[in-house]
C-alpha cells in the first residue's frame, strides 16, 4: 500500500496519457481531459501546502521573537488578507486587481530588474579571462551584448550582423546539441519512472 500502489498509480497515469495519444478509440473516451482536470484540482489544492509552510516558518519566527520578526507579522497579515480578498472578490475584483497591478507587479519586476546589477558582477567573475574556455564564453557574451546595444552599432556598424550570425550558426548548433541531449535524457528518465526503476520521487518519508 505504501510503495506498490503509488507505483501502480504512476504506471496507470503514464499509460493513460500514452494510450490516449496513440490510440484513437481510447482517445475518444476523453480520459486525458478527465486526468487533466484531476491534476489541476490537485494542483489547486497543493497551493495550500505553500501557505501552510509559510505560516509555519514565519509563525515560528514570530513566536521566537527572532530578529526582523515584524516582517513576518506583516507577511502573514498580508498573505491572509489578500488570500481572503481573492476568495471573496475573485482575482478580477477591483481591490484585488489594484493591489496586484500597482504593488505586486512593480515589486516583482523591480526585483528581477535588480538582478541586472548582480549579474554584471557575476559576469565579471565568470568571464574573467583565466582559461581559454572562459575567453570563448566572454567573446560570445560580448558579441551578443555589443550587437544588441546601441553603443555596439556606434562603434562598428556590422556588430548587429555579427551578432545575428553568432545566434544563427554556432549558438543554434550548440543549443541543438544541448536540446537533443535533454530530450534523450528526458526520454530515458520518463521510461525509468514508468518502469519503476526511478523511485527517488517517493522521497524518504521516514524510511518507510
Amino acid at each position: 500500500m505504501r510503495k506498490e500502489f503509488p507505483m501502480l498509480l504512476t504506471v496507470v497515469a503514464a499509460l493513460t496519457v500514452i494510450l490516449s495519444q496513440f490510440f484513437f478509440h481510447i482517445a475518444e473516451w476523453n480520459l486525458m481531459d478527465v486526468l487533466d482536470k484531476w491534476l489541476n484540482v490537485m494542483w489547486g489544492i497543493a497551493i495550500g501546502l505553500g501557505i501552510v509552510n509559510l505560516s509555519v516558518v514565519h509563525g515560528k519566527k514570530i513566536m521566537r521573537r527572532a530578529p526582523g520578526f515584524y516582517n513576518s507579522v506583516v507577511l502573514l497579515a498580508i498573505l491572509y488578507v489578500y488570500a481572503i480578498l481573492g476568495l471573496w472578490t475573485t482575482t478580477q475584483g477591483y481591490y484585488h486587481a489594484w493591489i496586484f497591478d500597482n504593488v505586486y507587479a512593480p515589486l516583482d519586476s523591480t526585483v528581477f530588474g535588480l538582478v541586472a546589477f548582480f549579474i554584471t558582477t557575476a559576469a565579471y567573475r565568470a568571464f574573467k579571462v583565466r582559461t581559454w574556455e572562459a575567453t570563448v564564453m566572454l567573446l560570445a557574451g560580448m558579441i551578443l551584448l555589443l550587437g544588441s546595444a546601441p553603443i555596439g552599432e556606434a562603434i562598428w556598424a556590422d556588430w548587429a550582423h555579427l551578432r545575428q550570425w553568432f545566434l544563427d550558426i554556432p549558438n543554434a548548433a550548440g543549443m541543438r546539441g544541448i536540446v537533443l541531449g535533454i530530450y534523450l535524457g528526458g526520454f530515458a528518465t520518463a521510461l525509468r519512472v514508468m518502469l519503476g526503476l526511478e523511485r527517488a520521487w517517493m522521497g524518504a518519508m521516514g524510511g518507510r
Partner: protein
Amino acid sequence: MSFDFPSLLSADGAPVWAAALCTLAIWTFLIRDNPIYRLAEHVMVALAAGWGVGYYYYSYIHPVITEELIGQGRWFYIIPIILGLFLYTRFIPSVSWLARYPMSAYIGYGAGYYLAFNAKPFLSQVTASFVSFSQPAFTGTLNQIVFFICILASLVYFFFTISKERPAMGYASQLGKIVILIALGAHFGNTVLYRYNLFLGRLSYVLGEWMGLLQ
C-alpha cells in the same frame, strides 16, 4: 527640466505613487541590505502566495466543484479532491506516506506526457539538423556546412561511451565544447540584456510616470 509628480490622492495618481514607492523600496538594496528592502521583499512574497490562493481556487477547484461535481453529478471528481488533501498528510509522520499518492499521479502523468508528446519536437529537431548545402549564395552554403559540422561536434561532445583518445573524436569533442561554450555565452548575454531591459523599464517609469521628467 522640472519635477511633475501626480497627485497622491487622485484616482490616476495613487497607483503611480504606489508603484514608484515599491520600486524605490526594492532599489534601496543597491546601497546595502536594509529594513525597507526586507519589508518590501516580505510584502512581495505574501502577495505572490496570497494571489495564488484566489487564482488556483477560481481557475481549477471552483469550476470542477460547481460544474462537474454538483452541476453534472460526476461524483468521481471527489477523488482528486481527496488525493489533493493527501498532500497535507506529510505534516503527520504516521500517515505521511499517503502524500505519495498524489505525487505518483503527477509523476506518472509527467512521464507519460513526455513519452507521448515530446517525440515529435525531438524528431523535428533531428530532421532540422540535416540542412541543405545547396544554397543560392556561396556564403549560405558555407554557413550551412559550418552549422552542420558544429551540430555534429556538439553531439560528439555528449558521447560519453566512446573514447575521446582517438584524434578524430578528440578534436571533434574539443570543437563541440567550443560550440557549446559559445551557445552558453550567448545565452548568458541574452539573460543580462533581459534583466537590464527590466531595470530600464522601472527606471523610465520612476523618471517618467512618477517624476514627470521624461515628457
